[in-house]
């Protein structure tokens, strides 16, 4: 499990880091940036001036806003970039205070991997199994809930324990036991000292650990890939007309393919109007190509004029099934609580429709993610709900399809993004 596979996937890896400032998260990110030379001399100068002779504080690199520096906390998700010779990385850094769920959901949506920090100095490693902190469980469970493909535990502050071999082995057993119980597939458990830099970018020179460094492991992880085989599904993003004026110009239907592939000659069906047509030509960026696959934006030209708008869907005939009622997991992100029966805007694919939460069935205990009886959802809470929409939508289960299974909820009065819906099933 811990041996780094050869690098196959050269796409940029987006990963989120979960943990609080105390866990050394900012120091770990600072270390990754510093060791991979993404921090440059002038930025270092600023830190050195602040340190006034003491060792520089790498965590200061990640505080972006003036208000954050004043208060000494991070407020919002920040994006950081670094690259090795083999791969480019995008870190979504989610701060770990009371707005945690909101920030972590934002960071996890679209991430390929999650690095959950475990502060070994906060654990009693003499117990068997070692009791894990509630926040470690919470971070891993949230990443799992959002279907982040790879979950990695970074066991930090190895420099601060007297017997790192024993402590790491005990924590590793506890993490594996917890993950198995929760159904989480673990991509790796890596011992590190972010402060000293041990095993972050440089492999650890210790008899008790022969696995990869954190960076080696990250270099080997796959990016989230949409399914390229099987039936086609495309949300229409933009309808382009060739040339000026009105009339019967050919139209190109642009949309990023959710799953499947498309080529000239394919028969497709449109949703919601149900019309069937043949694909005359497919385009990618400015050029006509043979085939376009999931994850790429295809420009589809049909063999005849059909009324198609942004928000419609194109798919393999008889594979698009719509529902007007569905069950879903709702992560609530707004300071105003979710109101049953109120009309919200929801966005599914490229379509905005009005929707109501018709029932809140339960709330997830944020520590165990077990469902507890509840009929309200406040900010940073997650629950199971039933949603009804003003028009039928071709929803799919989020577990199998991130495009067909995800929606955002927007408050019609404030236009704030109030919630994230992960579809379970049509109801």
């Amino acid at each position: 499990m811990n041996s780094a596979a050869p690098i196959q996937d050269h796409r940029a890896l987006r990963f989120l880091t979960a943990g609080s400032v105390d866990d050394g998260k900012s120091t770990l990110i600072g270390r990754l940036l510093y060791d991979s030379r993404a921090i440059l001399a002038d930025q270092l100068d600023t830190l050195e001036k602040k340190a006034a002779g003491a060792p520089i504080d790498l965590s200061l690199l990640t505080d972006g806003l003036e208000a954050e520096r004043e208060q000494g906390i991070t407020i919002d998700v920040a994006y950081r970039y670094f690259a090795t010779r083999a791969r480019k990385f995008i870190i979504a850094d989610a701060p770990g205070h009371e707005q945690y769920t909101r920030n972590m959901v934002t960071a996890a949506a679209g991430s390929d991997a999650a690095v959950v920090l475990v502060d070994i100095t906060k654990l009693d490693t003499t117990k068997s199994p070692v009791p894990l902190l509630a926040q470690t469980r919470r971070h891993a469970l949230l990443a799992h809930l959002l279907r982040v493909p790879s979950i990695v535990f970074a066991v930090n502050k190895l420099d601060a324990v007297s017997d790192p071999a024993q402590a790491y082995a005990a924590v590793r057993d506890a993490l594996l036991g917890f993950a198995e119980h929760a159904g989480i597939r673990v991509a790796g458990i890596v011992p590190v000292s972010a402060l000293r830099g041990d095993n972050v970018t440089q492999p650890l020179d210790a008899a008790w650990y022969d696995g990869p460094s954190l960076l080696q492991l990250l270099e080997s992880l796959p990016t989230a890939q949409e399914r390229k085989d099987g039936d086609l599904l495309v949300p229409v993003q933009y309808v382009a007309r060739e040339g000026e004026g009105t009339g019967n110009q050919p139209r190109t239907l642009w949309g990023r393919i959710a799953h499947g592939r498309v080529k000239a000659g394919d028969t497709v069906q449109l949703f919601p109007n149900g019309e069937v047509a043949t694909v005359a030509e497919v385009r990618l960026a400015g050029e006509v190509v043979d085939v376009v696959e999931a994850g790429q934006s295809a420009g589809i030209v049909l063999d005849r004029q059909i009324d198609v708008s942004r928000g419609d869907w194109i798919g393999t005939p008889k594979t698009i099934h719509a529902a007007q009622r569905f069950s879903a997991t709702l992560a609530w992100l707004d300071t105003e609580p979710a109101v049953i029966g109120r009309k919200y805007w929801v966005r599914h694919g490229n379509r905005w429709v009005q929707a109501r939460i018709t029932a809140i069935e339960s709330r997830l205990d944020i520590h165990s993610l077990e469902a507890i009886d509840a009929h309200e959802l406040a900010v940073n809470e997650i629950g199971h709900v039933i949603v009804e929409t003003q028009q039928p939508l071709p929803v799919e289960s989020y577990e199998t399809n991130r495009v067909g299974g995800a929606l955002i909820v927007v408050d019609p009065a404030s236009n704030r993004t109030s919630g994230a819906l992960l579809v379970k099933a049509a109801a």
Partner: protein
Amino acid sequence: MNAPLSIEQLLPELDHTHLDWLEEEAIFILRETVAAFERPALLFSGGKDSCVVLRLAEKAFKSKGKDGQYKGRLPFPLLHVDTGHNFPEVIEFRDRRVAEMGERLVVGHLEDSIKRGTVRLSHPLESRNGHQTVALLEAIEEHRFDVLMGGARRDEEKARAKERIFSHRDSFGQWQPKEQRPELWTLFNTRIRSGEHMRAFPISNWTELDVWLYIARENIPLPSLYYAHDRQVIRRKGLLVPLTEVTPPEAGETVETAEVRFRTVGDMTCTCPVESPAASATEIVAETLKVTVSERGATRMDDRTSDASMERRKKEGYF
């Protein structure tokens, strides 16, 4: 022996899949912007980041002809805020590119804002970089733009690292960093009220290196000052200040000629070149791989004022 440097030699392990992926993301955001808003405009200064966005826009909205040129017209105008202190070769480049491409250019002149009295300079040679905001917001109001696409990148600066891809501006054009909307998957929340507008940043996830790799790969034309040339400069506080009519030498300073290139291009009063012999995009990629000073640190006088100077300008409506 002296074969030209190639990207493959520089980065043998890094293939083009990551650039393809960044390109796909950027084109997706550009189409999203045009589909979701009524009156979009693309910020185009002639700077390298906006040249990259312009090429991405061609790919998103035009068709490539057999001669390799993109046919058709972009479904939005280009917008430039001219401080009156732009480098002449950049303005010349801007106008030439716009004419070649057959696009429509809207220019907001800072001089007009000064005449109207909406901008007051404290002294005639003051940096006009911060004052661009007023002319920009005036252009937005005059043309009723509801979204501006721009080439800002998150790796440029700490405040930008937290900005959304679709970033909301209130009716005063102000950015509220603490009120940012969570941005989930690619389900962008593009809803705004009348009088408000949005900024869209298609190359948010690109770094300086990605930009140069893409310029090299796509042969994107840039103003000549991005490549090595001889220029009269003044050494001041660790920066090379270009000698221009608005940046004269101070008492006791000497003017010398150096081989330089610009890493960023902005207002003449606050943009400095770096010493470099790099004469092509590929040579700049090679230098960027070895660089030790950040893009803004090496070249911008205004960002050195304080740790939060960019954030303050952005809150006021800066790019």
